[in-house]
């Protein structure tokens, strides 16, 4: 039935239409975030998000810095823990594991990646928070957020590092072995430099994921709007703030939440553009 040239042209146009719609989704999202945040962006200068006295959106003060610092501290803490864990996990799979352990461990990491954020949050709330509470009340804290986020971005770092290490040409490694390098000497001197761009790209992707994560952090971080003074202080992140206040936000308050959504999206866009630029340099 599909034999004529007209049919081919028709298929091509149908496919083209589908692709155009797919590409437009992105623009539609940006457009609606802009439209919804316009009432506020139009009236007040962006500097007020940093210089206002506090975050009391009902009274018209919109200081976003406590949420920004909460987001950044939680993400950086999680990266600090997840980078060594993720890279060692990948090293284990590629270089150290006995064959009968490498694949099961990789599958386990992939399954870990599929566990929903709400389940991580629930586990953190019922297990981690009481444990931290015994150590230092109140329990729901920056530390809990960091630990839960670490678990969530660990698979991203492990799997991207794994792909980057796998892509290192095997003759590099054979040559290193032939020169009598020790195993760590080979990894440190040959494999890491060759895979560096891939690993960095993976870390940046993971950072984007940590910044945008909402539910898990919302459930364990305590959600007090403040600059945390220590690991045991509760924090509120930008994404959690949107989830908490969107339900009752009206007028300008709603618009400010859309501004913070826009901010999150731009942050993540910059990070993913960086990741893809860096990732292109690796051996494929």
């Amino acid at each position, binding site marked *: 039935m*599909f034999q004529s040239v007209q049919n081919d042209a028709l298929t091509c146009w149908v496919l083209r239409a589908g692709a155009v719609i797919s590409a437009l989704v992105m623009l539609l999202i940006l457009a609606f975030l802009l439209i919804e945040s316009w009432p506020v962006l139009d009236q007040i200068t962006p500097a007020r998000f940093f210089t206002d006295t506090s975050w009391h959106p009902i009274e018209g003060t919109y200081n976003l810095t406590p949420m920004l610092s909460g987001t950044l501290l939680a993400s950086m803490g999680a990266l600090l823990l997840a980078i060594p864990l993720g890279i060692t996990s990948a090293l284990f799979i590629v270089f150290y594991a006995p064959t009968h352990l490498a694949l099961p461990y990789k599958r386990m990491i992939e399954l870990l990646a599929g566990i929903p954020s709400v389940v991580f949050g*629930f586990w953190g709330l019922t297990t981690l928070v009481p444990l931290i509470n015994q150590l230092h009340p109140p329990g729901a804290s920056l530390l809990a957020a960091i630990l839960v986020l670490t678990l969530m971005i660990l698979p991203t770092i492990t799997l991207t590092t794994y792909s980057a290490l796998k892509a290192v040409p095997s003759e590099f490694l054979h040559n290193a072995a032939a020169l009598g390098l020790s195993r760590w000497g080979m990894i440190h001197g040959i494999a890491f430099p060759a895979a560096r761009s891939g690993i960095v790209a993976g870390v940046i992707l993971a950072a984007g994921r940590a910044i945008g994560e*909402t*539910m898990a952090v919302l459930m364990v971080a305590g959600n007090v709007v403040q600059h945390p003074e220590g690991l045991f202080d509760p924090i509120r992140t930008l994404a959690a703030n949107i989830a908490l206040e969107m339900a009752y936000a009206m007028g300008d308050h709603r618009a400010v*939440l859309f501004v913070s959504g826009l901010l999150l999206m731009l942050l993540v*866009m910059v990070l993913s553009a960086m990741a893809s630029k860096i990732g292109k340099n690796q051996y494929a």
Partner: protein
Amino acid sequence: MLEVTTINKWPHYRDRFVQLVIYLLVFLVSAVFAWILFDLARGGLTHLSWEFLIESPRDAGRAGGIGSVLVSTLLILLVALTAALPLAWTTAALLAEYVPTTSQFGVTVRFSLQVLAGVPSIVFGLFGNAFFSVYLGLGFSILSGGLTLACMLLPILVSTAEAGLRAVPQSYRLSAAALGMSRTATLFHLLLPVAAPTLAAGLLLGIGRAIAETAALLFTSGYVDRMPGSLLDSGRALALHIFDLSMNVPGGDTPAYASALVLVVLLLCINMLAMKLAYGLQRRKIMTT
């Protein structure tokens, strides 16, 4: 004259030390994974029963089951897939078969999807609320939740399907052309059937993504835990049910454990099946996220 060289022992000890550290850290990661699963199983198994799966929640979820929640989840999923699959697969077919990889059009579409893949789910929730719920007037409904999820699923469905189509050997296309098959016929009768396992794996990954999602559904499909009467009713997804029970309902921990166990087991099964399809048939690797 022969000189006796002393072998430097330091690299050897260093290797041993690094190996020990790596084994310890890997053990730690595995132990935490086991700990999570064990906790969920211990908290949820006693509460889990057939009645729990089919009854509707009562008393804000403290009693009863998750029957209506499962129905809502399924409906949201169906809406999302109905909207996303045709778009995603046409896009993938175009990108893989019809436009050169370096063409401006292909690069633009791919870039837009790549950005979409990185957008945080709460931002999808904001957009869904503004566009589907308010602008299109769908309100808090299964339809607006499903459509929001459809936007979220597009990137993963496109990238897996594109990888699957690209993995079909070039000789298939040449043979089809030599036999005088039109490109449309080649696509429908040859390429899509050959790539079917990867398409299915991508579909399963998408389903896993969709039923794990909470933040995007908070302000689009809503909280109502009754049995939905139509697609325009609000319906509570399973992940949202867990969130609500653990955060807003005092004494909701036990049913929350049981719901979390159901969700995790469901996801583990879906993802394992996806891996089996993706790896078992020696396809190109498509699991990178």
